[in-house]
């Protein structure tokens, strides 16, 4: 929404098709691949066939992560990473034999001489690293994609800037209004043991700025309407903190289904919102925003 009028109004439709997860939106991470003219994958990546197969040997058969010392094996030689070993209750997941404490030193030593390209090679990183230092490099690699800046650890989507902008607009429902960005959250969670839906607005900025604005969210149908008005929360507050403070429009699942109409099996909720600039007024008990009790 790029309205620059007195207030910003928007309507979003939410249905069961939308990926509404408990706790957070999580999407598979996406990486953009540059076009690759060479059909031979090994040659294109600059790897010799043997490097690839050794690298595959270093992949844990259970969790498929790369294995690092101590690497374990069973009496028949099946390998296992240390994380998975703690979880398999002393039985080899490949052959079900009893696991001892056998370390696969040979594989650990072979890994030492392995050199691999950075995993962001397809994004432009030209570097090659020994197996044991590749991981460290990848955490700081300049070519690594950006995390969704919105909600920090709550959203695990990654991509380049144009991809993220589209993702923010489509999935996080970011609005541009009064020269500022606001994001609408909608999620399903459990209040105790009751399923509820909650919608609230966050402000891409800090709390003092956020207090300059007000927003309202409305759902309804069949002669009934629920309206929430409030101050957008700064993105400095994690979405979980806002959710747990109940600072937004909360509807029980039954009521949401009622508003969705039909046979109440499918969620089809229309949420209408408005953002406007808060007029400064004085003298209201509680401060009209100047003094906000702890919403923890």
């Amino acid at each position, binding site marked *: 929404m790029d309205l620059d009028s007195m207030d910003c109004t928007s309507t979003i439709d939410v249905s069961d098709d939308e990926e509404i997860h408990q706790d957070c939106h999580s999407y598979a991470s996406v990486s953009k691949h540059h076009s690759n003219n060479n059909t031979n994958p090994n040659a294109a990546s600059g790897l010799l066939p043997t490097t690839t197969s050794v690298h595959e040997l270093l992949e844990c058969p259970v969790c498929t992560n790369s294995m690092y010392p101590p690497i374990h094996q069973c009496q028949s030689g099946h390998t296992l990473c240390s994380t998975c070993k703690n979880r398999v209750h002393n039985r080899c997941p490949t052959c079900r034999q009893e696991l001892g404490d056998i370390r696969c030193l040979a594989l650990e030593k072979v890994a030492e001489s392995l050199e691999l390209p950075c995993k962001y090679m397809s994004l432009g990183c030209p570097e090659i690293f020994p197996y044991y230092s590749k991981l460290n490099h990848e955490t700081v690699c300049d070519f690594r994609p950006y995390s969704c800046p919105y909600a920090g650890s709550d959203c695990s989507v990654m991509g380049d800037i144009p991809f993220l902008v589209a993702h923010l607009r489509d999935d996080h429902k970011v609005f541009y209004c009064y020269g500022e960005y606001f994001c609408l959250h909608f999620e399903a969670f459990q209040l105790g043991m009751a399923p509820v839906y909650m919608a609230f607005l966050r402000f891409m900025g800090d709390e003092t700025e956020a207090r300059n604005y007000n927003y309202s969210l409305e759902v309804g149908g069949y002669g*009934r*309407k*629920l309206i929430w*008005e409030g101050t957008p929360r700064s993105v400095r507050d994690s979405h979980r903190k806002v959710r747990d403070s*109940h*600072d937004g429009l909360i509807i*029980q699942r039954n009521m949401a289904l009622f508003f969705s109409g039909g046979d109440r099996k499918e969620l089809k909720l229309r949420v209408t919102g408005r953002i406007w600039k808060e007029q400064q007024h004085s003298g209201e008990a509680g401060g009209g*925003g100047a003094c*906000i*009790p702890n919403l923890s």
Partner: protein
Amino acid sequence: MNSSEMEPRINHLQIESQVHELLDYPVCTNQITSTIYQCSNDYTGEVNNDKEKPYNCPYSGSKCTATGDIRWLLQHLRNDHHVEMHDGRSFSHRYVHHNPKHLHHATWMLTLLDCYGRQFCLYFEAFHLKKTPMYIAYMQFMGDEKEATSFSYTLEISGHGRKMTWQGVPRSIRDSHKTVRDSQDGLIITRKLAMFFSADNTNSKELKLKISGRIWREH
């Protein structure tokens, strides 16, 4: 004002009310001669055989089994249950409890509202929705379902830069208040949010919830 007729465990819950608007239509006070009905609780009442079947007393469905027509029920509510009645289409009530964490499940308060020549029941209840403490406020119409749908009402709670508004259609008192509560057909608020609205400059953990609203006729 304390109401001694309330369930013993909610003796400390109080209502403070203010009336904002004057009555629009006079209340019908015509005498209707009819047969006398006596219920098991020893309350006597009158039932008009020409009209619809009697209504159950809206004061906590299961405990009071009195039934009668609307006119009789109003007297019964006032005289036997000491329920307050307020005139006017707008209202504002403050629900106060000094220790909201000790408000038991299904504690409730009933106030009567009189406007448009009809009467409405305003309920405020503390309850648990699957172990989460909540409050709900809703309106019921003292009359049949058909006439109930000709009205709409709003309930509003506000404070500290937040406002929650519910607009709904009053359910007929043919539905027990428990039915309405369980269908969540009203303004529902978590206790956490209710405490936020109750907060003031003191550090008290009292519930002080001001609920305003109005009733209007749609058609």
